[in-house]
């Protein structure tokens, strides 16, 4: 039963039409005036590049070992799975002793934990966080929600397949996965990285168009340039 009579209520502009994204002139306290074009000034316009591995195998192997043994998680709890991250990093499970630490900024992190469902609004932030991370970087999907939508399979606001939008290195089943399962997952991830398998960032760069198209099909108000490091 569809009510055809609905006329949308007025909304503030969305996407690139947002007020704060418009060009504007700013007067500094000292009287100087200068132009600000938020899109151009705040974001980088270059598409990501795939990065070569090291040519010498033993060097690459050593680097991979280092990367595997020093996983810096971005401290971004995207969903409910984040609640098990705290026990993970605290005395009971103490993930630090496995070389897992958390970092507050995406720049310094290598591992993005998508802790459960991603609403469209968070997906946008997760993509931005991911793009700000440095190659090589890894994504781990926690719980059912990242695999196939989980219990929010029919929700209008959560995505179902995480690998449509970001290259995922590992999935951990559970709702939510326990810290022990996470630790086991990290061990698996380390094995993958040591074997040279954690090339998600290059995959992302190589299939950039495809990922971007998927992202844009879901995020209706795309208010940033395609790539924002």
């Amino acid at each position, binding site marked *: 039963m569809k009510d055809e009579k609905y006329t949308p209520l007025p909304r503030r502009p969305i996407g690139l039409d947002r007020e704060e994204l418009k060009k504007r002139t700013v007067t500094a306290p000292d009287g100087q005036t200068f132009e600000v074009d938020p899109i151009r000034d705040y974001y980088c316009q270059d598409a990501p590049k795939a990065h070569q591995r090291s040519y010498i195998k033993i060097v690459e192997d050593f680097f991979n070992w*280092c990367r595997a043994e020093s996983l810096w998680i971005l401290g971004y709890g995207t969903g409910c799975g984040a609640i098990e991250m705290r026990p993970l990093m605290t*005395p009971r499970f103490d993930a*630090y002793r496995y*070389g897992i630490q958390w970092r*507050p900024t995406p*720049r*310094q992190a290598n591992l993005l934990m998508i802790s459960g469902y991603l609403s469209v609004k968070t997906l946008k932030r997760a993509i931005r966080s991911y793009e700000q991370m*440095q*190659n090589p970087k890894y994504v781990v999907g926690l719980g059912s929600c990242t695999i196939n939508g989980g219990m929010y399979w029919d929700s209008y606001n959560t995505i179902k397949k995480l690998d449509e939008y970001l290259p995922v290195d590992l999935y951990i089943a559970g709702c939510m996965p326990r810290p022990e399962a996470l630790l086991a997952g990290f061990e698996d991830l380390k094995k993958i990285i040591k074997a040279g398998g954690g090339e998600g960032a290059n995959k992302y760069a190589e299939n950039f168009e495809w990922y971007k198209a998927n992202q844009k099909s879901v995020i209706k108000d795309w208010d940033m340039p395609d790539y924002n490091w």
Partner: protein
Amino acid sequence: MSFEWIQIPYALLTLLIVFVYGVFMTTIIRKMGARAGGRYGIRLYQTFVDLAKNYALRSHISHGIMFYLGPVFRLTGGVGLILFVPTIYGSVMHQNFAFAGDLVLALYFVFFGTLGMALGAGESGHPYSAVGITRGLSQMTAAELPFVLAVFAVSLQYQTLSITEIVAAQQGGFLSWTLFTNPIAVVAAMIGFLGTMMRSPFDVFLAPQEIPIGPPTEFHSAYLALMQTNRILFPIAKIVIYMNLFFGGATNWPVFFLKVFLIYLVSALVGVVFPRFRVEQSIRFFLIWGLPLGILSILIV
């Protein structure tokens, strides 16, 4: 003291020893913090791995020349400090480039890194960096005040600006340490020390819970690795100054290791159990407690 070429490899050796020691000490201090929380904490070699990983990251994005130079300056501050401060008293190998007026240069280096950092972080354009820099500089200035006053007091006390001579004056039993000859200056300096060690309660310019994580927010990959290297070297270098000025210096490596560790421990002991001050609270703290003590120490001398 005349300059000899052999000092360069010697100084580099010192640097290496200090670096390796610094890595382990950082790790051990972190492990102690972890243990206070009831867990084991990171592995002993973790800091090495982290460093290697950060250097090995493939991509990096620069925000401009200063962004690149910031960490370099910062590291220069740390390395320079080490190089110009006599690390082991009486050792030819680890005398470094100490000279008559090196105390002033050392003080300069203490600030130098911070300024470089400020410029670099400012270039990154991140508002948190800007906030962190503002806080950092203002707090640093306030914290350095008692320290500088204490240093003045000490240099007045020993009538020299050469660190080596100050150390020399303190030899001969621990009672001749500045700690006991001029305790007020030491207390004032230690207050300043707490303020510059980037630990609670005076780490408001890092404050991961407020401005993640302050100035280094935008730094990554090799930039971050440079800064980490500095985070390892710089505190030791600073502690070396403290050790030399107030705690009688060190005549051999074991004493050096022990003293540096103990002084470092002071900041860790305080840092783990206190939350951080707000920036104006910490400035007020330095002004109320540190400044008068510093002035007092000068007056006493």
